[in-house]
């Protein structure tokens, strides 16, 4: 993957474009065998590029970023190679041009082609991927009395051991999703409470509980035992928590973000100062390298783990000031390491997509309503957002087209919190209407994929013969 490789890519795409058809199948660059093959073909003897503008840089960019994925050798593409390739592609294209389109799209044609005709031909030409059925109503509704209707808190989490934790007032409850059993983890004292945040550790056993009095408690959920209390970090309530292995990152109303190493006595290992109002969103990237933080000061920061140090107040990698209201909803893309989605509060109403490597805003979509939470579908390229006034709905978006695929209504007040089951299929949402609802929005586990195959009819092959 050096400069020579990419030059080859460009020239080969040029020759393919001028020679047009018949060559297209073997055009996968950055692949040793193909480059060797090319040497023998007459297309590649001359490296002179006569007409730069006729080369399709889009195509080249696509080949750099997407072309190899899955088709060639999926086993080789490790996450780090993937990330490197992304960066390479980004520097190639991102910094040079801007791609713009009108916000208002041209009117969609009305019945340009008779529908019956188009229906038959589309059926023949390509067996359309069966559309997943998305139930429009919640699968299950539980009461959540006394849940704090506070946008800045994070009171719901679903751990890897399939237990859901929810803070209602001063009490943290655990709901076991496998058998539906409810238990109480802790009720904190009046003067310390209410609980302002909960977050499962990656092991699904330990849980961090942030409190109104600035303390953070660590609990062992199986033994129902308080392990330790982290004190002295924040000046006021702790509304945002996230884990990065043994590091518990806490965000407070004081605008501070603190990395706590829960194993050691002096637990504060780093402090990130950049927000000047309450921190309400905190998410570590899957790699554990980057932390995204959102605040009531409308700021979104990206912090880099490797440049953090314990003595100096660390600087952010990116400060993103595009949101015009509090940034609470944050979600790292599960299939693209440096892609972050962020949602803005009532005055902003947009979902924005960021390349956290370059800090570039990739897209922004006005949702028309406060964005309270965001979740990516782990199985498909989809994003789920939860909203407030006026619909209090959950909206499912296709990514990157951002076409709405479903709107799930049922909540009667803003949907403050969302959590995803460990299998990635079910989403729990808690709202100001004091209910906790479960939605089967991301498909059903295991059943969804094999099902179409077992249903094939004996003469299904006939379609292909024609």
């Amino acid at each position: 993957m050096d400069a020579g490789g990419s030059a080859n890519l460009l020239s080969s795409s040029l020759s393919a474009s001028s020679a047009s058809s018949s060559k297209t199948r073997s055009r996968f660059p950055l692949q040793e065998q193909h480059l060797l093959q090319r040497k023998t073909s007459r297309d590649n003897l001359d490296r002179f590029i006569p007409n730069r503008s006729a080369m399709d840089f889009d195509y080249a960019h696509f080949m750099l970023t997407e072309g190899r994925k899955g088709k060639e050798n999926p086993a080789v593409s490790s996450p780090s190679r993937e990330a490197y390739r992304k960066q390479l592609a980004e520097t190639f294209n991102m910094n040079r041009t801007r791609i713009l389109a009108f916000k208002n799209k041209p009117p969609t044609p009305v019945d340009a082609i008779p529908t019956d005709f188009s229906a038959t031909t589309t059926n023949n030409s390509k067996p359309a991927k069966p559309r997943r059925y998305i139930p429009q109503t919640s699968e299950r509704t539980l009461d959540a009395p006394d849940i704090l209707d506070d946008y800045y808190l994070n009171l719901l989490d679903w751990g890897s051991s399939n237990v859901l934790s929810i803070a209602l007032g001063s009490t943290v409850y655990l709901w076991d999703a496998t058998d539906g059993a409810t238990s109480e983890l802790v009720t904190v004292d009046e003067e310390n409470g209410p609980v302002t945040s909960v977050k499962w550790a990656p092991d699904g056993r330990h849980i961090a509980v942030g409190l109104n009095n600035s303390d953070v408690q660590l609990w062992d959920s199986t033994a129902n035992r308080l392990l330790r209390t982290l004190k002295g970090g924040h000046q006021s309530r702790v509304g945002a928590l996230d884990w990065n292995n043994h590091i518990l990152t806490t965000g407070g109303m004081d605008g501070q973000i603190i990395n706590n190493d829960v194993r050691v006595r002096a637990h504060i290992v780093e402090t990130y100062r950049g927000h000047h109002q309450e921190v309400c969103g905190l998410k570590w990237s899957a790699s554990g390298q980057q932390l995204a933080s959102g605040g009531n000061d409308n700021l979104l920061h990206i912090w880099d783990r490797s440049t953090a140090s314990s003595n100096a107040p660390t600087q952010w990698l990116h400060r993103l000031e595009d949101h015009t209201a509090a940034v609470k909803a944050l979600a790292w893309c599960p299939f693209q390491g440096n892609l972050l989605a962020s949602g803005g509060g009532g005055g902003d109403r947009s979902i924005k997509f960021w390349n956290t490597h370059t800090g570039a805003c990739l897209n922004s979509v006005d949702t028309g309503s406060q964005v309270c939470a965001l979740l990516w579908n782990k199985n498909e390229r989809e994003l789920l957002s939860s909203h407030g006034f006026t619909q209090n709905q959950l909206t499912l978006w296709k990514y990157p087209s951002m076409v709405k695929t479903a709107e799930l209504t049922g909540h009667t007040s803003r949907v403050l919190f969302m959590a995803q089951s460990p299998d990635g299929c079910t989403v729990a949402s808690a709202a100001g209407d004091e209910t906790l609802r479960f939605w089967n929005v991301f498909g059903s586990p295991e059943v969804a994929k094999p099902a179409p195959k077992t249903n094939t009819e004996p003469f299904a092959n006939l379609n292909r013969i024609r």
Partner: protein
Amino acid sequence: MAARIATKDIITLRGSAAIVSEFFGYAANSILYNRGVYPEESFGRVKKYGLPMLLTQDEGVKTFISNLTSQLSEWLEAGKLQRVVLVIMSKSTGEVLERWNFSIETDSEVVDKSVSREKSDKEIMRDIQAIMRQIASSITYLPCLDEPCVFDVLAYTDKDVAVPFTWIESDPKLIANPQMVKLHSFDTKIHKVDTLVSYKNDEWDEP
């Protein structure tokens, strides 16, 4: 416009921008007509570039294209426009089926020092006419668009361009493993426009 630039074969930046943006307007109309994105009866016939051209009579599409060309000519005059792409997508799935790619090279000396160039109107029109003929004949090799389609236009600009209020940043809407056909190009001596259409591989031919 013709009056402004036709005299003595001198072409200015403004005149060139007007020719190029007008070309985009007609090219877009022609593509939408020939590819059947909008119904045939919604187009009306005019004479342009020595050819019968078809222009949409649909108010919505008309406004979209006229807003587009006026913005494009602004960018062309500033020398900030690198490329315009007309994307045809499936209405139901949003899948990109065709990309009509117009790459633009601007003579930076003209933009920076506001000099003019010499090229006859007639020559330019002849080149454009050739492209328009090619667009019209493209239906012979492009795969049939046998489902309702929608279109969108992407403008590739320099990074330092301020995004106008009515525009947003977009993804490039690429086609995986496309077929490509290069069409004629034309050159006003200030703006050089290369045309290329890429389209989804017709899977019927695959073994």
